[in-house]
């Protein structure tokens, strides 16, 4: 379950010294967006346990191409990398990611990240349906949209606790006329008029 907020810890020396684990870092692009309101600082960093920094960067860029939301922060896409990093604890999955990233690079004269937007997409399209592609797509379609930052960005409020939306906007739409009763029903303490 991908629900933890961004790591705000400074990147420790230990992280850099680990043999395989990399780090992803960035800066929020929108100083006043809903995600900035949740984040205490504009810069963010995320340590990786199994993937290298470069693999993390490629996966983040790949996810951005697969699910392009122009205004969605990299910090949210990074949660997909975090999820894939967790799955890479399994050596077969780690190998699939490693060879998949190599394949992307091979099709881009050695550096897929050096390509322009259209070229990046063309390489990805040529790999659509491969197990590596499906691994990333299948993870991202869950992990990208199942976290509090995405909820804030897309305007999904999730749970409002047991009081629910009854007093918190379940029927606050005003750009259409309110339907009449009895069709539109009654609030719990509202008595139907005869």
């Amino acid at each position, binding site marked *: *379950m991908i629900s933890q907020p961004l790591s705000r810890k400074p990147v420790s020396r230990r992280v850099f010294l680990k043999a395989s684990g990399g780090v992803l870092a960035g800066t929020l692009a929108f100083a006043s967006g809903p995600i900035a309101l949740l984040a205490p600082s504009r810069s963010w960093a995320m340590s990786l346990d199994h993937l290298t920094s470069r693999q993390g960067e490629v996966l983040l860029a790949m996810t951005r191409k*697969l*699910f*392009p*939301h122009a205004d969605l922060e990299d910090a949210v896409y990074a949660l997909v990398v975090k999820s894939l990093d967790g799955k890479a604890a399994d050596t077969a999955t780690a190998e699939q990611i490693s060879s998949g990233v190599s394949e992307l690079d091979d099709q881009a004269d050695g550096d897929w990240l050096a390509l322009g937007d259209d070229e990046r997409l063309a390489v990805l399209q040529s790999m659509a349906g491969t197990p590596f592609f499906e691994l990333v*797509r299948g993870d991202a*379609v*869950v992990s*990208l*949209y*199942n976290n509090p930052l*995405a*909820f804030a960005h*897309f*305007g*999904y*409020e*999730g*749970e*409002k606790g*047991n*009081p*629910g*939306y*009854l007093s*918190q*906007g*379940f*029927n*606050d*739409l005003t*750009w*259409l*006329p*309110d*339907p009449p009763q*009895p*069709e*539109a*029903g*009654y*609030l*719990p*303490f*509202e008595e*139907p008029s005869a």
Partner: protein
Amino acid sequence: MTMTDDQKTFALDDDSVVVVIGSGAGGGTLANELAQQGVDVVVLEAGKLHTAADFLADEWGAFSQLSWLDPRTTSGSWRLATDFPNLPAWIVKSVGGTTVHWAGASLRFQPHEFQALTHYGEVAGAELLDWPLSYDDLAPWYDRAEQRMGVTRTNDNKGLPGNNNFKVMYAGAQNLGYSCNTGHMAINSTVRDGRAACQQRGFCFQGCKMQAKWSTLYTELPAGIATGHMELRPESHVARIEHDDQGRVNAVVYFDADGNELRQRARVVAVAGNSIETPRLLLNSASDRFPDGLANGAGHVGRHYMRHMTGSVYATFDEPVHMYRGTTMAGIIPDESYHDRERGFVGGYEMETLSLGLPFMAAFFNPGAWGPDFTQAMDQYDHMAGMWLVGEDMPQATNRITLNSDVVDRFGLPVANVHYDDHDNDIAMRQHAYAQGRALYESVGARDVYEVPPYPSTHNLGTCRMSERPEDGVCNGHGQSHEIDNLFISDGSQFTTSGAENPTLTIVSLALRQAEFIGQQMREGVI
């Protein structure tokens, strides 16, 4: 302290009990009704006991907690076999069964839907049949079911208040000349039956934490236990049903939570495991005397699998909607549920408000999709309204649950394979329904309209169907198997045809009627 702590218990060798397999709409209701008559009942439920306090307002979290995720396989031309090859159905493995997850829509079948063959005539490729009971036979039981479930807009239960998603549907319905209200819902619109009113939490599918939505979990099951005539055994996965030399069922073999194989003796067995597990169990119970499985002399067990014609339409608007706020499905248009061959298909469909949270919208909007078309829709999530389309589908003999001996569950039992091909009638009806949904939203000024494919099936029906003649089905009009007098089918597997309506109210009504029948038969010593 759970509801099972102080319950009456029965010995494994007690051969006077009725064993009910499954605790959902059919099994839970039947068990309580028998217990109310003083009949001793043992309920074997494969799932764990999760109470309302355990429920999670988290789509994926609740899905993991509640869903039936044991392995299944799929085949056929339906899209689910590609998108979700091991998840043909979105149903529950937990005490209370799929009444934990259901949306609460409680619509009666229409009289003509009990006589599909008579009213629709022969449809090529479909094995249409009239039910062995009529609407009038079931009407008094519908009355009782609506009463005990507290269905809104019946029995002086006022309608639920409409949410934002309803407002959009209602405005479109007005434009198209449709009728529309917040529906007949088994969800408390006010405090009732010791349960709270709906608080519009927006998580009907994840288990109702307020217990405002009727579920056997906190109504029928504790009521049955309170009689002292019912024992509920969660985490009891039934492997097979056994019979005596006369061919009457006499025991149920199951695995408990620790994997121990146990054998509960039984006077009567009622199977209510949902329309995939029920036939799987009967097929897995094959014996020398019944080599093709129990109640399968005519070869109909597992056949005629129906899952309703379904689909969704979502539309985006210039102004916000926030469709996820409040009751998931309180908005119903019944105007397309009539039958008229002139539309290019037989039977009809209902249009019902529906919303998914952001995580499930991403997962189910267009499975397998990626790229800007997908993300453009997601970008408009909070400006989106949605509806579900649910209609009659055709009973095809080749749409079928079979045993897949190549794949076994953790007990070594062959899993169910679910084979489904869309019938031309389903396809024609879906296109009609998509077009009407689109027209409805466009009349309200929709920006983009999206036709969304069927989700994993929640309405699984027909695999042990009722029939007047033994050669046409598995059980009679009381759910009693044609072949074995003391073996009953007690869930949606009984449905001869699917009707257009959400099936739960009909399952509960049939269970109430069946309970009276079983009680009478037992008192008379017939079974």
